[in-house]
């Protein structure tokens, strides 16, 4: 078991490192991730939502759908823990 | 950002990670993991992700560790690997 | 040649399927239940007979339920070949039903309601096969038949019945999934349709090796035809009650297998294509081997029903042999043998059942002298065996004669020999039974004196079928007319 784990770990790691070959350099302001969608958020957040914290505006509004489910996830976790552990009468 | 600090933090993070995995005392492992989370949090703060760093500080180093400790105290500290 | 859309084919199929409802509902009232059974069988025959005139005029009916795949629908179509088979099957079903009532009551069998219900479903499936308009519909009803006869085969519910049932389903479902289904899909990929079309659909669409692969797949895929080596289920299934055996052999299951093979040979491959590629020899070889081997094995069987079972295996291959000759006379013979054998073999099974009811004997060696106590039964048995052997003036003669002519037409003299030799073998395994019945002296003190004829409800059907063996020789015109429409449309 440990051997399989080690082999698959090494394999996955090697694959991931191989994959970084095509990556833009670290901190490159011209990386695709920094150029395609995100500048729009930064430029328009104040104008479109009146929220200067871009993280909050993206979290709460632009990608609010994700955040809604994120809240549901934590709610689920609470329910699961209650249903797994808590005695019914408590 | 300063790459020397960055590198130092990264090295420490890796050391903490490995230690977490190989400590036989689970309580100690959890505490080392808490340190790991805190170092991560520093790393992210340094990378400009303050929100994430804040969250990691409260969740990873705080609540998550508390949950681990609660469980370990209710079960066992021993681990065979 | 007009094929009208009509609800009648569906009605013919569904009547007995829907009939299971009143049968199941009258679970506690045997008289009512059996009245339903007979009524439904009569109704079914009436519906089918009502469609006969149109078919004889060269027309027919069709009904499309739903187009489930592009170009392939679940659809029914009444044509001469289907009509021919449906007429035989539905007529014999009436007799089998009546006989069942006598048999089941005489032996006070358990779970009769389930028995009649399964019977009705199986009949629906049989007519469905007869009236299928394409290979998919045929496959559907073919599977339905396998499943609905399972409770019949395992009716006894003891260990022997269980293992027989397992064998039955393994062979039939296994081959249909493993051989028929891939063949069907292959045909669909090649042609884009599965409709039965006079003259076949494969011509020009597939090369010789594919066609021969398909042919082998389909001949073995329809394992109900019991072509060796996939015949093992048939003797095993003899554990079933005798009406079931007669149903299996005479009316439905094995005939459905042969019918399916003939269907695909005539309407999917097309005799022309097979003749061009010289593939008839595949069929005739397989059939010849089965005929001879099965007849030889039959000689060694002491259990009457098992001997009849091996006889059936051999006789079925006559029909495939006829198709494989690819001559008009051969095909006529093959198709004709379908009904001739049906009437003959059902008589034999009904007789075997009657003997079992009356004397509780199932081994031939124990049947010495029974014939004198049960003259009607043995007389019918004698007539039917003559028909199967192929003696004039009985129906079997016509079909075998036609086969011989067909073989000579096709210049396949070896096949003539096969037919003749096997007829001799037939005689060799049938005559001892009759001889023992009438002439052998039974050992003293085995209670032979108390043996009476079976109940009259059993005797009537078997007398009727025996007389039909005779009648079909004298008036074969209807059968020949229908066959004519198939062979040279």
């Amino acid at each position: 078991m440990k051997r399989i784990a080690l082999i698959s770990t090494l394999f996955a790691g090697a694959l991931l490192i191989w994959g970084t070959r095509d990556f833009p350099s670290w901190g490159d302001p011209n990386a695709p991730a920094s150029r395609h969608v995100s500048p729009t958020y930064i430029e328009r957040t104040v104008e479109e939502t009146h929220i200067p914290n871009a993280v909050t505006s993206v979290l709460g509004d632009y990608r609010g759908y994700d955040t809604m489910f994120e809240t549901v996830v934590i709610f689920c976790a609470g329910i699961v823990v209650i249903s797994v552990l808590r005695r019914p009468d408590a | 950002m300063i790459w020397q600090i960055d590198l130092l933090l990264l090295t420490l993070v890796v050391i903490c990670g490995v230690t977490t995995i190989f400590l036989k005392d689970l309580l100690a492992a959890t505490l080392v993991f808490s340190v790991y989370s805190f170092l991560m949090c520093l790393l992210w703060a340094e990378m400009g992700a303050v929100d994430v760093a804040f969250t990691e500080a409260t969740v990873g180093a705080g609540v998550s560790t508390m949950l681990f400790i609660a469980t370990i105290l209710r079960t066992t500290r021993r681990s065979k690997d | 040649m007009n094929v009208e859309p009509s609800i009648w084919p569906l009605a013919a199929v569904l009547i007995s399927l829907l009939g299971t409802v009143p049968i199941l509902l009258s679970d506690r009232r045997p008289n009512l239940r059996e009245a339903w059974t007979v009524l439904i069988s009569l109704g079914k025959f009436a519906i089918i007979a009502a469609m006969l005139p149109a078919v004889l005029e060269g027309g027919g009916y069709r009904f499309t339920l739903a187009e489930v795949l592009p170009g392939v629908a679940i659809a029914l179509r009444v044509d001469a070949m289907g009509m021919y088979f449906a007429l035989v099957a539905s007529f014999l079903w009436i007799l089998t039903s009546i006989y069942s009532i006598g048999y089941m009551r005489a032996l006070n069998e358990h779970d009769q309601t389930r028995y009649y219900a399964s019977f009705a479903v199986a009949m629906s499936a049989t007519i469905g096969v007869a009236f299928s308009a394409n290979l998919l519909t045929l496959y559907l009803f073919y599977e339905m038949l396998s499943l609905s006869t399972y409770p019949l085969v395992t009716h006894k519910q003891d260990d022997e019945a269980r293992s027989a049932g397992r064998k039955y389903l393994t062979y039939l479902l296994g081959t249909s999934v493993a051989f028929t289904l891939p063949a069907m899909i292959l045909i669909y990929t090649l042609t884009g349709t599965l409709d039965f079309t006079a003259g076949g659909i494969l011509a020009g669409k597939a090369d010789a090796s594919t066609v021969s692969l398909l042919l082998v797949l389909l001949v073995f895929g329809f394992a109900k035809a019991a072509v060796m080596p996939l015949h093992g289920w048939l003797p095993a299934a003899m554990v079933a009650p005798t009406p079931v055996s007669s149903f299996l052999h005479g009316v439905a299951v094995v005939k459905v297998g042969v019918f399916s093979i003939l269907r695909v040979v005539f309407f999917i491959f097309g005799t022309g294509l097979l003749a061009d590629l010289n593939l008839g020899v595949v069929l005739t070889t397989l059939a010849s081997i089965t005929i001879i081997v099965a007849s030889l094995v039959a000689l060694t069987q002491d259990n009457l029903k098992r001997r009849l079972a091996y006889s059936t295996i051999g006789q079925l291959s006559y029909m495939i042999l006829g198709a494989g000759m690819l001559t008009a006379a051969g095909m006529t013979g093959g198709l004709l043998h379908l009904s001739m054998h049906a009437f003959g073999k059902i008589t034999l099974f009904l007789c075997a059942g009657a003997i079992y009811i009356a004397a509780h004997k199932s081994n031939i060696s124990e049947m010495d002298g029974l014939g004198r106590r049960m003259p009607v039964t043995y007389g019918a048995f004698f007539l039917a065996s003559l028909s199967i052997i192929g003696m004039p003036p009985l129906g079997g003669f016509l079909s075998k004669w036609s086969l011989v002519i067909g073989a000579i037409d096709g210049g396949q003299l070896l096949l003539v020999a096969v037919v003749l030799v096997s007829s001799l073998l037939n005689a060799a395994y049938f005559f001892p039974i009759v001889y023992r019945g009438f002439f052998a002296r039974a050992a003293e003190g085995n209670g032979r004196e108390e043996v009476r004829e079976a109940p009259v409800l059993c005797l009537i059907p078997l007398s009727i079928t025996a007389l039909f063996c005779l009648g079909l020789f004298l008036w074969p015109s209807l059968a020949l007319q229908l066959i004519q429409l198939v062979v040279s449309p």
Partner: protein
Amino acid sequence: MSPTNLHMYALAAPLIGAFAVMVVGRYSRRAVAPLVLGVLSFSFAAALTVFLQVLSGGGFRYVVGNWLAPYGIELSVDHLGSLMQLLVSGVALTASVSAVKSVAKDLEDRQHLFFTLYLILIAGLHGLVLTADAFNVYVLLEIASITAYGLIALGKGRAVVSSFNYVIMGSTGACFYLLGIGYLYILTGTLNMADLARIIPTLESGAALATAFSFCIVGLWIKMAFFPLHVWLPNAYSDMPDGAAVLVAPLMTKVTIYLMIRFMFSIFSPAYEFIQHAGVQQIVVGVAAVGIVCASAMALAQKNLRRMLTYLIVAEVGYMVGGVWLANAQGMTGAILHIVNDALMTLCLFLAVSAIAYHEGALDFHRLRGLYRRMPVTMAAFTVGALSMIGVPPTCGFFSKWYLILGGIEAGQWLYVGALIFSSLVNAVLFFRVIEIAYFRMPDADAPGTGHGAVQVREAPAMMLQPLVVAAAALIGVGLATGPLVQHVIRVALPGGF
């Protein structure tokens, strides 16, 4: 057609219902069932309306929060998506009718917790089938998984261990998927599927793209229990409470396969998967074939009905993954059709299992003796489900198998075709073994021939029988409707230029 909000209501109804159940259920147990059924009926009606609208007016893309893609999160309510939404809501409604009854018996005092998780799971599945955003998929997958962990853990005995294993495997899968998405994000800077599909062909196909693709796919494979990553599934699914199994077993793997289709054809393209990496395609189809054979063989070794079915689920996953990777229209049609059909078949079988378990408890084979007499309706429906699994027409299982084999022949994947046929044969053996036991073996020492009334008919409550009969009827209904379904829905929905 103009966008409506109906599909969102179909999603939000179970979600809001879940909170209501959580609060109300603490005070009144009796209110739980009507609430659950009401919410799910509404959701089903909405999904049906959306489906019909899409059929008549075509699909549309919906932007949540009115932020145009790629800035906001986009949902795609197209033929495939709304078909899946209809499937999810239909199966959920049918399953819940039965679950209401069996949960009231099994988990009397935790009903409200159970149904809270249950409804959230349904909402998560609704979200999964609609979303057109790669990261949103991750969040929703986690919702579905966490609720499933909880539902499994509510089972008896070693369910907690099975659940924990599922947690570890499921998280591995999710992490892999997230890694892949991370790579894609670094390469493209977007998470919207359509936007990704636009950008990816402009990138040179290199190491990072291949890594991203393989990690996402492997992550999804773990989540859907594709052989040999299936080890968590049989335990998890057989230890669940019955009320949960009737929902989770039919839907979870199927929705994940749907996600794989979305991922492969909405983000990447057939050109990427099948032309640039044709060798991989061979391998995947081969593994699928091996998986089908192995899972079927393992199903043969089981002595418990429910465990047997769980292995069959693994085999069916092989069918669909193989079908997708056949890389032709027939295979894709077969795979999508099989998603629908397999959901219904699994629903029917698990409903039957749950109905049997209502009185019998454990489902070891020897306890099934004489079941045809005690539970004729249940066993009749079970038989229909079994026939569909074997692939006997006119049940729907036949038709999807037909398309899959057709695709296999077209692609020349004879190993896969052979595996399909082999597994049909094994299914026949498996189910007839069960049927034989239930049909022949007498539970007690009552001799055959005692006639009627010797064994008491003791069916499960009507609340559990009705959905079962509906599911069995659906198997035949969908089978007969295969033609229109394929022609008007699946052919239109075929992604990626097939």
